[in-house]
């Protein structure tokens, strides 16, 4: 399977639509432990991506990733803009000369490293990395398996749930200290929404 342009277009479209649809939930989660703007920020960013969908998906894949990244950086308006933006910019950079799905873990890993560097954060600090890092491990461990998509979906869901008992030490939620315990991390949730959208789209195309 190669990532045909029609598949890529529906991946971007569905992922953006799912994030936009989940904006109220993301905002509610962020009101509990952040400043309550994650949903509206992500919605603004992914609406900008949808507006450029044709232009983005007519580019070579590595350029398309970079355009998505730059669009998010320029439109999200919160820390999640540079974080998700850096993921796509770095993944796009890593994509040059690589093949999908063979090099997926490596490309995804470049994106995860960029998020970690941008946020000066690691897994275990109640952030989006608590979903992205376990998913990267699954992509590495289960590459080539027939049920990879299902495993990614399950990994992401379980990883979101594991952020509930965590205490935030990075980002706005860290101001709350122990009071951040007991809530789902909004960034972990939005990462899960994006990953689930990708999984569903790829499954429907199989």
């Amino acid at each position, binding site marked *: 399977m190669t990532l045909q342009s029609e598949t890529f277009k529906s991946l971007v479209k569905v992922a953006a639509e799912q994030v936009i649809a989940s904006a109220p939930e993301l905002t509610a989660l962020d009101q509990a432990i952040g*400043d309550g*703007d994650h949903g*509206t*920020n992500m919605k*603004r960013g992914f609406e900008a991506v949808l507006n450029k969908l044709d232009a983005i998906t007519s580019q070579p894949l590595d350029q398309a990733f970079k355009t998505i990244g730059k669009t998010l*950086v*320029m*439109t*999200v*308006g*919160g*820390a999640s*803009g*540079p*974080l998700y*933006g*850096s993921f796509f910019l770095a993944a796009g950079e890593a994509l040059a000369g690589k093949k999908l799905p063979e090099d997926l873990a490596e490309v995804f890993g470049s994106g995860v490293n960029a998020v970690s560097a*941008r*946020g000066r954060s690691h897994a275990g600090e109640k952030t989006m990395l608590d979903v992205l890092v376990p998913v990267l491990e699954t992509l590495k461990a289960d590459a080539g398996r027939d049920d990879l998509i299902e495993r990614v979906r399950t990994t992401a869901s379980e990883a979101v749930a594991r952020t509930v008992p965590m205490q935030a030490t990075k*980002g*706005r939620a860290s101001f709350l200290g122990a009071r951040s315990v007991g809530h789902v991390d909004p960034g972990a949730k939005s990462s899960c929404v994006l990953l689930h959208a990708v999984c569903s789209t790829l499954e429907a195309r199989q």
Partner: protein
Amino acid sequence: MNDTVGIVIVSHSKDIAKGTADMVRQMVGSEVKVAFCGGNPDGGLGTNVSLIIDAINDAWSTKGVAILVDLGGAETNSEMAVEMLEPERRKMVVVCNAPIVEGAVMAATEAAGGSSLEQVRAVAEELTAG
């Protein structure tokens, strides 16, 4: 060469950014270039990489630019903005780890004396030391 380090103020709120810039101008005068921005791309509370890049370019000086920020997203977006500058400008811009109002006033005061970017940053960051 009597250029001075430029100061950029980045807040989630345009009112806070403007108010901080007003205080700097009143206390330090107009010899230091001060630019500010605040608000997300829709004008609500937040920060905006594009406006931060514009502010850096407005405050540009051959001695560089020091950025003062309020909360986390302003810092992340400012760091992103710096990386999106032309390569030769990137290493001439620093994001100071300092309180926004006090840091901006201290940084501008130091800049007005003709200090280097590193000196300006050090003076602003003394506020968070200890």
